[in-house]
């Protein structure tokens, strides 16, 4: 059983005979990430965050910026046609005016951008410190949540109907998973 599992793992890592090889990745040291992107998902978004359990509202600023380094795919002998466009990083920062989410940043690397500047990503996660927001009374329905080693994350997604962005803030622990806030822009 173990040997079979190892063999399968090796096969998965190595690929199958006849499978196309992956594309190569080459750095573009002279390219500017911001100039490659033309997408409403990227930019500064000011919206309203609603704490669901208290119904209190606060202003939220989400900034999504394309940063370097930049790279692009190149075909290798035996590889399939490779995506045009480039790879960049997205620097995502979040901050609420009530101070319960202090300035928080996270970087997503290897995000593909097509030749038209469209970012090939539909959602982003930003880890948030649960301490300040739970201490701030945002979860009165889960009074013990702070003692359960919780984790918090803001999930940002492309909005529908023309809105560039929507979002939810969730806090999870081994026994609880709760949506604490929604974001509208």
């Amino acid at each position, binding site marked *: 059983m173990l040997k079979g599992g190892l063999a399968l793992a090796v096969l998965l890592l190595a690929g199958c005979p006849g499978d196309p090889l992956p594309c190569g990745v080459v750095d573009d040291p002279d390219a500017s990430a911001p100039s490659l992107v033309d997408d409403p998902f990227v930019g500064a978004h000011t919206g309203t965050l*609603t704490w*669901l*359990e208290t119904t209190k509202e606060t202003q939220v600023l989400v900034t999504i910026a394309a940063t370097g380094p930049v790279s692009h795919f190149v075909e290798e002998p035996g590889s399939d046609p490779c995506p045009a466009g480039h790879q960049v990083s997205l620097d995502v920062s979040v901050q609420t005016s009530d101070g319960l989410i202090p300035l928080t940043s996270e970087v997503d690397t290897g995000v593909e951008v097509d030749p038209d500047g469209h970012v090939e990503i539909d959602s982003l996660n930003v880890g948030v410190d649960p301490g300040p927001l739970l201490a701030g009374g945002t979860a009165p*329905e*889960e*009074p*013990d949540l702070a003692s359960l080693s919780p984790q918090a994350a803001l999930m940002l997604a492309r909005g529908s109907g023309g809105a560039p962005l929507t979002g*939810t803030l*969730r806090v999870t622990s081994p*026994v*609880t*998973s*709760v*949506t604490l806030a*929604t974001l509208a822009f």
Partner: protein
Amino acid sequence: MPRALALLALLASVSGPACFSGGPGARGPCSGSNPNAEPTLEAGTIVDGVDPAAWLSQYWGTYQGTLTWAAGGETTVTLTSSQDTAQPSVSGECIGGEITQVYAYGVLVLTTGDGGLLGDTIETIVGGPLPGLPSGGSPRPSAISASAQPGPWSGNLEAHLTVDVARYSTSSYLLLSVDWPLDTGRPVSASLEFIGSPLQAPSQTDMIQVASMTFP
């Protein structure tokens, strides 16, 4: 969906071939055209020397314990489990043409001393690998998952909820998970959780513990 969850719990382990006697012919209940079927086991079917119906009867009984509400407070709890009389058959789970698990539909009834739950009935699936099957021969942990639709509950459950159910969709429900090790033949602990989607974030599913139980 809840039954599918329970069934997944039953299928957590995979056993080897099993031998049959009695029942629908010498080729056994997995001999149909679908090698991964879930056949009904006729009364008297013996799998590796074990009567599945008799083996499943270990799950039927009444157990007293202590329930602790997440909102605060402790009370006595009675868990009664019995086979669902509306679906009295015992079924097998076939993988690759061999029976690996047996299960039956059960009904769990929860009552608490403080009136938070007054005989709320929860349907579930109980079962697992028989002791005679290669991976089922030694005591191993088992679990039962069950679900109940939201109110109106028979007791004053909402008074014990921390969560404001009005903020959630009407398809919200309670999930009861029972830790029922086969070597004890009785439940040792259980938890009751509220599962629902916030009306303001319908694509999300929240899970909030309502109560925990122990059965000494």
